[in-house]
């Protein structure tokens, strides 16, 4: 391995850079969580208080004491889940076609559309969608949000799953087919289980993107379908006076993601980018 090489000074320098980078990466997270357990007076202290403060759960109590917050959290989970499933199912089926058939009707246009959807700034679509959705009485509805979220992340989900499906040897399918498996059986009992790790990885990534989505709900959601990022952004315009609950809400949004990132980091490297470089 190349690892062992390099002078001692080089190694020291490398560690110095890595340590600084890691601190930079982690500090904001630490700061958010620590602010979330501080009283306002402590969070506004100058010089800042890193550890020398009395922790308080007040901000979290405050947050969960707001009836709207729980609803928002539940909304976010429900919308994330439903749109992820929709996105991965629709995307998975399309990805199968792309992975297994080099030529078919509409392949080129589909590929082109996916690139365009991925490249198009959200605001371009949201203005007319807003007009359509309000015209047809679909404003502030969770199903509307689910469908739109799923569409926006469709390119990502299709590309990712295509690359996973391409790694499943075609021989497996041929074997099953010669054993007389029907198309449906083939898909559900042969391919799906083999593709499961890829599907799971795709689900996680799509779920994270959905969880983080902001522009769509800030415009298309009213009271019923409001999601966590929108709720958090509301603090900025109204409650800059107290960073505590704001930090608490932010912590509840990002700490699960941070943990998930650590948990699946091996897959992030090998899985997410497998299509990009593997083999």
């Amino acid at each position, binding site marked *: 391995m190349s690892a062992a090489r390099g002078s001692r000074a080089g190694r020291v320098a490398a560690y110095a850079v890595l340590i600084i980078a890691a601190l930079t*990466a982690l500090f904001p997270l630490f700061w958010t969580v620590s602010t979330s357990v501080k009283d306002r007076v402590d969070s506004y202290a100058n010089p800042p208080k890193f550890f020398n403060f009395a922790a308080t759960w007040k901000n979290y109590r405050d947050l969960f004491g707001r009836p709207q917050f729980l609803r928002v959290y539940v909304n976010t989970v429900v919308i994330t889940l439903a749109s992820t499933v929709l996105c991965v199912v629709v995307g998975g089926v399309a990805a199968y076609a792309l992975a297994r058939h080099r030529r078919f009707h509409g392949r080129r246009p589909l590929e082109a559309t996916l690139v365009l959807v991925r490249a198009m700034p959200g605001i371009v679509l949201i203005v007319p969608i807003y007009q359509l959705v309000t015209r047809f009485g679909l404003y502030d509805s969770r199903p509307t949000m689910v469908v739109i979220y799923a569409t926006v992340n469709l390119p990502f989900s299709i590309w990712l799953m295509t690359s996973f499906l391409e790694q499943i040897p075609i021989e497996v399918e041929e074997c099953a087919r010669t054993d007389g498996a029907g198309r449906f059986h083939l898909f559900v009992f042969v391919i799906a289980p083999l593709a499961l790790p890829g599907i799971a990885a795709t689900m996680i990534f799509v779920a994270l993107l959905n969880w983080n989505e902001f522009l769509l709900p800030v415009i298309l959601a009213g009271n019923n379908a409001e999601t966590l990022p929108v709720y958090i952004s509301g603090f900025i315009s109204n409650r800059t006076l107290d960073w505590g609950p704001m930090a608490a809400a932010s912590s509840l949004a990002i700490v699960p993601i941070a943990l998930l990132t650590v948990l699946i980091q091996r897959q992030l490297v090998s899985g997410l980018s497998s299509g990009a470089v593997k083999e």
Partner: protein
Amino acid sequence: MTAPAGTLPEPGSAAIPAGRPERATRSRRPGWSARRRRLGAAVLTLPAWVLLLTLFAVPIAVGVYLSFRNEAIGSFARGRFVGFSNFRRDVFTSTFYDAVKTTAVIALMGLAIQLPAGIGLALLLHRNLRGTRFFRSALLIPMLLTPVAVGIMWRFMLDSDLGVMNWLLQTVGLGHVDWLGDQHSAVVAIVLVDSWQAIPFVMLLTLAGLAGLPESPMEAARVDGGSAWQTFWFVTFPMLRPVLYVILMIRVIDAAKLFDIIFILTRGGPGTATQTVGLLDYNTGFNFLQISRAAAIGVVLAVFTIPVYLLWTRAVRANK
């Protein structure tokens, strides 16, 4: 809509080896004619088409329609056709050009920071020093965090009087920056926060690219007495080019789409210093409630994505 977790290139593009799928399509499948198979494949993409048509194609068409009318949110008067007046008023103006410039500056500054930093960190991690797994975890964490929450926490840290950033700068004797209040430093602040999330992404894809490279050319270079830098520049870098191209494409797209972080940190301010085209469009549509004028800006933005699309497909074809 920053979509920090990047996206894979289209199947068949530079980065995807074509071996397996090639075999897949050539194989004979007893019982199913090629035609039926093709039809089947087309049918499988139908659900995706339904979503893409209703929520992409239709909105684009409606956007074009709206851009020639004078609809406003909350206006109870019926809109009417107004020709190109929305474009005259909101597109061919200095406000719009400024926004284009701001968007470009933020994107370019971001690339200038994110690519070297991301690639550099990937090279360090690739050396597989002791503790690499820990560092890799730590460095990846910012990548997928909710941009809105990220914006909030940075806004708190960047507060000019009470923020921890200025405390740090002052402690090490670097003075005091009015991060979000000054026209130039606000741009820098946005680029820094965006980079904080994007560098891990660049690093991740570069790492994956490095993992896929054969070791022997590097070994050979080293045996020949090349320095680490020469090895990287003349051997590793050229081999990484396809992956780097993909990273570059994705970063350009996402920088142009950058919205959440700006919305939270500055809302385009101070003044119009950080007002990108996306922010301008948002303000026009949802602050001024001028939905038709917003649609006109959107139409122009949509046209801007066509070159991106062409570059992308060209990259795909060139690498086939």
